[in-house]
């Protein structure tokens, strides 16, 4: 074992509360106290690992520092993917950071430090919910969730795929929650708090699985953190501070029954942090010795308030190593490298230590496959979804087209990927592309003249700032402002800018490579130099000339930091609004934050909080039911099926169940009401007059005035229509109840159940149609007219062909049950009628199949669980206007529940998604919605490609390609919904090309398409 204390890793002597090594092992983050704020720093790992890099002054040590936390940072954690960093601090916030691929290093504007940030990490989201200091954060396996715990006694689970969405808040602890760990299998999350308990929560329903209190009953709340850890095989959970016979221990909790029979003993003071090595080991096979099969074991590091560190192997009874006096103060956090051989430890004393182990000491780490086998054996599922990808990477690409798509995919992946994969050099965007070909220098020269300045209504100046880079459209334009102190004098500035531009992407190109030890890239060197020169120059002259004026400068210093009182004159208007806000804002943030933590307060009023929490808890239990889709509840009630498990909680339930029998009294049973009466749909009431905008392009407006005149005892109604400014009107012998129109036809239904259809110019197209019952809903679309009558029948006519498409079809079959009604109806441009019911289901009547087909069901669990977000096209906006999307509504929240279910077996989710996508395709087909069909087809294809369903993919391709050689017997249609199938195939093929596994399939169809094209 080698031990190193890199002295350069420091927060200027301030405590370092947390350390975490990036999954790729190239950098690590520390979190702790900054000058007057919290501080997160990112460091280069290379100088820790290799002495020559530490001595090499061109290798940067510090990569980035972020002062955005307003108070001490208690925890920093990299996501498993490595693209995000989460930090939580005493400012009650969790911040999530992502690397922005800027070109150059930068300094924080106004900071005295000359150290540049080599990498740019920007806060992409701030998670606010906690009402107290955030003590620990943890990413779930596969980065589905991010959990944070706080001294507000809660744990918040955030949706890591949709920040800042909150999944749930786990309440139940009655003390400060100081540590979190996820079960590597993803089934549980465990938390340890000052309330003498360790709780395990299920991720399926976010309820408590186990509450372990016995080993903690003697514990006092003396540690700053309680970072517990779960073993990589998932079998053991090891707590921080526990007590056994008045001695401090780290309690081992077995997954099987949450038994607490073993512990790690030996530390003289409370255990603050436990961290399992991510690897599982097996005994190193010595040369010569007989290879006897040994049990795999785990390795665990334990850090304590007694300033010592112990490393344990689960196969040994005693610690592998104990290191005393490594630090002057309590150990705060431990992080292993992913290789399992390196470890960083940080301490309250503000230092960090690195431990390097050899394979001889720890054993042979199992490969990922072997680890997966273990998981597979214990839990029946593998944790590595991507394991097949790795195997494929060695496959030889046989088809040049395939190579192209593979490369495109890699490129786009690289463009999307933040840190690690793409260095700043290759992902650096071109300056010109952002600036419309105009250089930044030009823009700056004329900015004052060019910028748009207006006056507001109250006469104030308003400047529209010039946007020089948009956020998150790829990356920012080169960070010239950050890296170069811009000097006002034109010539020097431009020369510096050109330097910057010409050399930005080549750190090796030496301007003055040896000048500044701390920086790697030459532009920054020159920049820093420039700053220094300029600085010194001005300062010296200033000091020379104003030596006598030193005193007032001190007096002036306070002015820099004190916030202005409402400044007189100019700000009269503002001060009134400002008067509203300052009440709850800290008067002087920095000084307040320097105060010692006020945790005592939080803990002392925890009693009061208890009551509130209990209330919340009771409410929390009912919540899942409230979340149930309304439609589903209705449906269940309707069928009168008692819900066993939910009876207790839902009080109003009995009433609807009792009432139906009451209605059906024995006397009525003999004479059942006519079906027409039962299924009566609501009819619009007759109004004196109404208007209707039929279409906007061309602009058609319809006005109806009933009973305009009485001629020979019959009342006449007037229908007036204006189309592009030209009017026409006509008279009808009865009051008009409802009207509808499209750009082609207009239809009105009258009180006497007559339906009249006119052309857009007012010509009557059809003789009056007598309807069997009054009209309930009337729709026109293109040259189709749809009528839904109160008697629950549906008719659709094609006005051009003067033919019925749907003839008095009854809605009986879909309106099963008493309280279902039609909530929505529409007619597509292709003349397909669609009816949405109050139970959340939508049907369309397929005239070819002559039956009702279900196209959407809001309560469908497939809709809720399907997760195809990874298959969504990036460049195509989702089709939101098609009939399918309209009927499914915004409820179609792709994978709303999917992330919650990700702990369910992968194949189940896969099947659900597949079923859902196929439903969508079929629905789009029935609705004859070509755009939606294409949209879902591409998603479907991408999903099949991602999931590797070759049979389905092949069948799909076959169907799209059709027979290559014409034969009379074939019934293959070359088009579907007006889309040419082979064109669709041409769109699908590049998707297939992205997965190397399908290269044979790809080649096969690519060749056939070529063949057909040449014919």
């Amino acid at each position, binding site marked *: 074992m080698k031990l190193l204390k890199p002295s350069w890793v420091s927060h200027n002597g301030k405590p370092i509360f947390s350390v975490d090594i990036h999954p790729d092992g190239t950098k690590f983050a520390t979190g702790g106290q900054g000058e007057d704020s919290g501080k997160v720093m990112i460091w280069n790992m290379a100088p820790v690992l290799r002495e020559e890099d530490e001595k090499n002054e061109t290798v940067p040590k510090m990569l980035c520092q972020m002062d*955005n936390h307003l108070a001490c940072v208690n925890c920093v954690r990299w996501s498993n993917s490595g693209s995000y960093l989460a930090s939580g601090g005493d400012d009650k*916030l969790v911040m999530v950071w992502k690397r922005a691929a800027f070109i150059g290093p930068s300094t924080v*504007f*106004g*900071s005295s430090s000359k150290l540049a940030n080599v990498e740019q990490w920007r*806060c992409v989201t*701030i998670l606010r919910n906690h009402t107290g200091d955030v003590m620990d954060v943890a990413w779930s396996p596969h980065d589905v969730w991010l959990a944070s715990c706080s001294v507000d006694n809660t744990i918040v689970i955030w949706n890591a795929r949709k920040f800042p969405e909150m999944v749930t808040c786990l309440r139940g602890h009655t003390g400060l929650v100081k540590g979190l760990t996820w079960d590597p299998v993803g089934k549980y999350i465990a938390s340890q708090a000052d309330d003498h308990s360790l709780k395990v929560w299920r991720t399926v329903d976010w309820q408590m699985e186990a509450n372990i209190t016995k080993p903690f009953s003697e514990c006092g709340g003396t540690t700053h953190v309680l970072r517990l850890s779960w073993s990589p095989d998932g079998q053991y959970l090891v707590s921080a501070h526990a007590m056994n016979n008045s001695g401090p221990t780290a309690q081992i909790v077995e997954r099987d029954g949450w038994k607490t029979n073993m512990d790690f003993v030996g530390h003289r003071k409370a255990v603050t942090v436990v961290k399992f090595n991510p690897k599982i080991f097996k005994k190193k096979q010595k040369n010569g010795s007989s290879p006897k099969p040994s049990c795999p074991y785990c390795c665990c590091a334990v850090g304590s308030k007694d300033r010592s560190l112990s490393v344990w192997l689960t196969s040994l009874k005693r610690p592998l190593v104990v290191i005393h006096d490594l630090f002057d103060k309590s150990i705060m956090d431990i992080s292993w490298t992913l290789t399992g051989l390196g470890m960083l430890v940080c301490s309250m004393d503000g230092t960090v230590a690195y431990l390097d182990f050899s394979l001889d000491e720890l054993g042979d780490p199992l490969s990922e496959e072997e680890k997966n086998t273990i998981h597979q054996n214990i839990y029946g599922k593998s944790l590595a979804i991507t394991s097949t990808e790795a195997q494929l990477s060695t496959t030889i690409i046989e088809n040049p087209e395939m190579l192209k798509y593979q490369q495109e995919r890699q490129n786009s992946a690289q463009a999307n990927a933040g840190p690690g994969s793409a260095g700043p050099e290759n992902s650096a965007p071109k300056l010109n592309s952002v600036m419309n070909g105009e250089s930044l220098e030009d823009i*700056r020269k004329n*900015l*004052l003249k060019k*910028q748009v*300045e207006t006056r*507001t209504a109250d006469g*104030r*100046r*308003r*400047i*529209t*700032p*010039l*946007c*020089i*880079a*948009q*956020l*998150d459209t790829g990356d920012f334009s080169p960070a010239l*402002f*950050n890296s170069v102190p811009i000097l*006002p004098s034109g010539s020097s500035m431009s020369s510096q800018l050109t330097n910057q531009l010409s050399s930005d992407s080549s750190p090796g190109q030496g301007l003055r490579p040896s000048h500044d030890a701390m920086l790697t890239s030459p532009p920054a060197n020159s920049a820093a130099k420039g700053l220094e020169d*300029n*600085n010194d120059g*001005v*300062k010296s002259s*200033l000091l020379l*000339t*104003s030596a006598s*004026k030193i005193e*007032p*400068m001190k*007096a*002036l210093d306070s*002015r*820099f*930091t004190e*916030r*202005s009182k409402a*400044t007189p*004159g*100019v*700000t009269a208007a*503002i*001060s009134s*609004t*400002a008067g*509203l*806000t300052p*009440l*709850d804002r800290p008067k002087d*943030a*920095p000084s307040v934050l320097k105060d010692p933590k006020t945790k005592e307060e939080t803990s002392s009023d925890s009693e009061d909080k208890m009551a509130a929490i209990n209330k919340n808890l009771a409410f929390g239990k009912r919540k899942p039911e409230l979340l149930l889709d309304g439609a589903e509840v209705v449906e269940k009630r309707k069928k009168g099926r008692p819900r066993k498990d939910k009876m207790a909680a839902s009080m109003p339930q009995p009433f609807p169940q009792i009432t139906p029998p009451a209605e059906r009294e024995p006397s009525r049973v003999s004479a059942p009401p006519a079906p027409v009466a039962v299924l009566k749909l609501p009819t619009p009431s007759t109004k004196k007059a109404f208007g209707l905008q039929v279409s906007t392009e061309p602009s058609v407006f319809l006005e109806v005035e009933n009973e305009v005149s009485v001629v020979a005892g019959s009342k006449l109604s007037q229908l007036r229509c204006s189309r592009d400014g030209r009017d026409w009107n006509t008279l009808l012998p009865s009051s008009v109840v409802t009207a509808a129109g499209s750009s082609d036809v207009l239809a009105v239904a009258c009180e006497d159940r007559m339906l009249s259809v006119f052309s857009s110019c007012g010509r009557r197209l059809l003789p009056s149609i007598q309807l069997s019952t009054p009209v309930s809903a009337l729709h026109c679309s293109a040259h189709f007219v749809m009528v839904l009558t109160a008697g629950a029948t549906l008719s659709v006519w094609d006005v051009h062909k003067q033919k019925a498409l749907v003839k008095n079809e009854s809605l009986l079959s879909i309106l099963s049950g008493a309280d279902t009604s039609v909530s929505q109806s529409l007619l597509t441009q292709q003349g397909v009628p669609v009816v949405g019911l109050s139970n959340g289901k939508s049907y369309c009547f397929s005239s070819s199949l002559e039956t009702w087909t279900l196209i959407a069901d809001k309560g469908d669990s497939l809709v809720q669980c399907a997760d195809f977000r990874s298959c969504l096209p990036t460049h195509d906006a989702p089709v939101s206007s098609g009939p399918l999307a309209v009927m499914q509504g915004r409820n179609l929240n792709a994978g709303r529940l999917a992330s919650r279910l990700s702990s369910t077996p992968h194949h189940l989710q896969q099947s659900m998604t597949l079923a859902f996508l196929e439903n969508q395709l079929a629905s789009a087909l029935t609705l004859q919605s070509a755009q939606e069909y294409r949209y879902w087809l591409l998603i479907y294809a991408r999903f099949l490609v991602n999931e590797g369903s070759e049979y389905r993919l092949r069948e799909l391709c076959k169907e799209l390609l059709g027979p290559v050689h014409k034969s009379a017997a074939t019934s293959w249609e070359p088009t579907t919904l007006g889309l040419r199938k082979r064109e669709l195939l041409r769109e699908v093929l590049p998707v297939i090309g992205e997965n190397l596994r399908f290269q044979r399939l790809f080649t096969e169809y690519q060749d056939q398409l070529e063949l057909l094209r040449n014919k």
Partner: protein
Amino acid sequence: MAKVQVLNVAVLDNPSPFGNPFQFEITFECMEDLPEDLEWKIIYVGSAESEEYDQVLDSVLVGPVPAGRHMFVFQADAPNTGLIPESDAVGVTVVLITCTYRGQEFIRIGYYVNNEYTDPELRENPPLKPDYTQLQRNILASNPRVTRFHINWEGLADKMEDSENVDPSTNISVCFVDIVLLFGNRCVVLTAAFHHDC
């Protein structure tokens, strides 16, 4: 965390004669679209001794601010010499740039400013009454002093809380307006009744 980060302030036209307008080229970055304008102010500290002599040289609204990186030049006229104490005209003082959002100041950037005569003769024997035409203003551009304040960027929750904290008299006026809107000509009676309740 602040939604707006000031990345750089470049002091243009510096040093310059005292009467020239101040010009700051400000580059800032915004994390998300801001529904309201930013308000920037340039404050000239006339005397170190007292805030009385502070002059707000100008204030501008800057907007709309979508997420991204932006720049603009803030130009403001030189201070009104009549408001500067004669004893403080020559020497070191401070100019402040502040930015507020929803009426809350979140950043304050301060620069030392040195006003001195360019003419060595005048420098040796400065006139009793300062000759502003001969004064040169030199802003110590390389050493900005930046102070950041924590503010509530959301505004909504803030206002809610505030409405509870505002003193009753404001509350009444708010209600009064609502009543006017709701009941038109009957407001007088209703207001009287309301007032009674309060």
